[in-house]
């Protein structure tokens, strides 16, 4: 592993993994405690529509995907806030429609063929330095927003009714944070792929939730777990010449089962906390 660090692509992969872990640890904590995993998946898949829009109309990739995902995210948020009971159906529709638009628009774009596999699995071993800077900027934005709104977000996530009675602008902050989720997903998909984004948003926070007495602690633990999974996954993928994204996910899954086993041995029961 150490000798691998002489390659720039390997260093960039480690940086990308580091920032993706940080962003997913923080954002994923909100996603998991607010039960927004399905919405996150919807945004991530709808982002493919943005790729189609970008190539078909010849606008920059980042503008197309960010714009498309943000619009999809805002529509989904409005449905979640207005008609919570139908939200899952609606998100499912947008999920499929977004991908279909992307595929059709790419069909219609002459001479260009985006590899769907690279959208799904990313290419963490081929991350250009410019993407590292994007992720650094996004990490700073995410942490600044979280630090500034920490108490409000905690209140909204735990008991939004009480929060709104205390004058917290619940709906506005929902839009803001789901917007931040959308931006994070789009930028990280480019680096690590859609499947790894969803895995990093859910598995590390889910493990961390059991051991945390506060939202902040859950974010820190989730970030640490995600980093460990990333490093281990990259090392295994490098050593055995496997697909890096899928390897990282399996390592994370293995980590999840280890945490279940440790809980079982320590407490004598499986402790997936339930509502």
């Amino acid at each position, binding site marked *: 592993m150490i000798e691998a660090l002489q390659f720039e692509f390997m260093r960039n992969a480690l940086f990308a993994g580091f920032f993706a872990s940080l962003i997913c640890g923080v954002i994923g904590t909100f996603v998991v405690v607010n039960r927004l995993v399905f919405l996150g998946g919807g945004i991530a898949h709808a982002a493919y529509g943005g790729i189609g829009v970008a190539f078909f109309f010849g606008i920059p990739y980042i503008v197309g995907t960010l714009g498309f995902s943000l619009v999809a995210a805002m529509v989904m948020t409005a449905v979640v806030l207005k008609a919570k009971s139908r939200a899952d159906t609606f998100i499912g529709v947008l999920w499929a429609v977004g991908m279909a638009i992307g595929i059709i628009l790419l069909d219609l774009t002459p001479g260009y063929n985006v590899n769907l596999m690279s959208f799904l699995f990313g290419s963490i071993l081929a991350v250009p330095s410019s993407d590292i800077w994007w992720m650094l900027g996004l990490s700073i934005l995410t942490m600044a927003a979280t630090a500034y709104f920490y108490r409000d977000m905690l209140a909204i996530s735990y008991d939004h*009714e009480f929060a*709104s009675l205390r004058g917290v602008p619940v709906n506005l902050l929902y839009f803001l944070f789901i917007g931040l989720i959308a931006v994070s997903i789009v930028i990280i998909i480019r680096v690590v792929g859609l499947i790894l984004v969803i895995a990093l948003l859910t598995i590390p926070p889910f493990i961390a939730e059991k051991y945390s007495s506060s*939202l902040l602690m859950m974010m820190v633990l989730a970030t640490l777990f995600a980093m460990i999974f990333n490093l281990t996954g990259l090392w295994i993928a490098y050593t055995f010449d496997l697909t890096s994204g899928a390897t990282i996910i399996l390592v994370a899954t293995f980590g999840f089962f280890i945490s279940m086993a440790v809980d079982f041995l320590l407490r004598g029961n499986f402790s997936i906390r339930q*509502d």
Partner: protein
Amino acid sequence: MNEPIIEVENVSFSYRGLNVLSDVSFSVREKEFLAFIGPNGEGKTTLIKLLLGLLKPDTGTIRIYGASPEKAAHRIGYVPQDVAINKSFPISVLDVVLMGRLRFRGRFRLTKADREAARKVLSEMEMLGYQNRRIDDLSGGQRERVFIARALATDPDILILDEPTASLDNAGRTELYAILKEINKSKTILLVTHDMMVLSSYVSSVACVNQNVHYHDDAEITEEMIQNGYHCPVELIAHGIPHRILKTHKDQP
């Protein structure tokens, strides 16, 4: 008699074409301890949400300290139903109570004074020793005290509780009502409950909610109230056997 602080006049509310409350009028005075009773799904929680300004009445007016519910929301401390809250959430007892220090219509900055105020109400609820515990490690009764502490941390004039005793055993209920009785010395309390057995010993007035509201300026539960408020009075009275629900007749020696 002092002036009413809550005035509800001819309020109606329907949800998807169903009348939940129709033509409801009553008023509440300072330091009153009012219990809302009535069958499930017949508008008790809706009535509370109207008072809190979370819902708007179709017709009629609600005034709290002479203002609309939204304007008066900062004077009300709200204790929601335990079941309505995400139990697996990783949050400490102190952080729950600190939610009560979220400032009304202003940026929230956590100060030392906020932490001190939160610890003060926790110690009033005899829960200070649990401040760093995760909320789902507590028992139902302890959690209820934390939610009351959170409501008190808002420094309210009125405390509204939605079925605070639902998940408690008899000893827990008695303890909780004793706490509320103490709080009632300085604050007005509105309480939704199914718990008829302790009603007469603690509350000062009772309102039966069953689409309409029958308000009684007395803690006595009359036959008319039971007939109007519940569909099954027999079950209700059997429930209260070990305790006295009806006051003794006044004309008895």
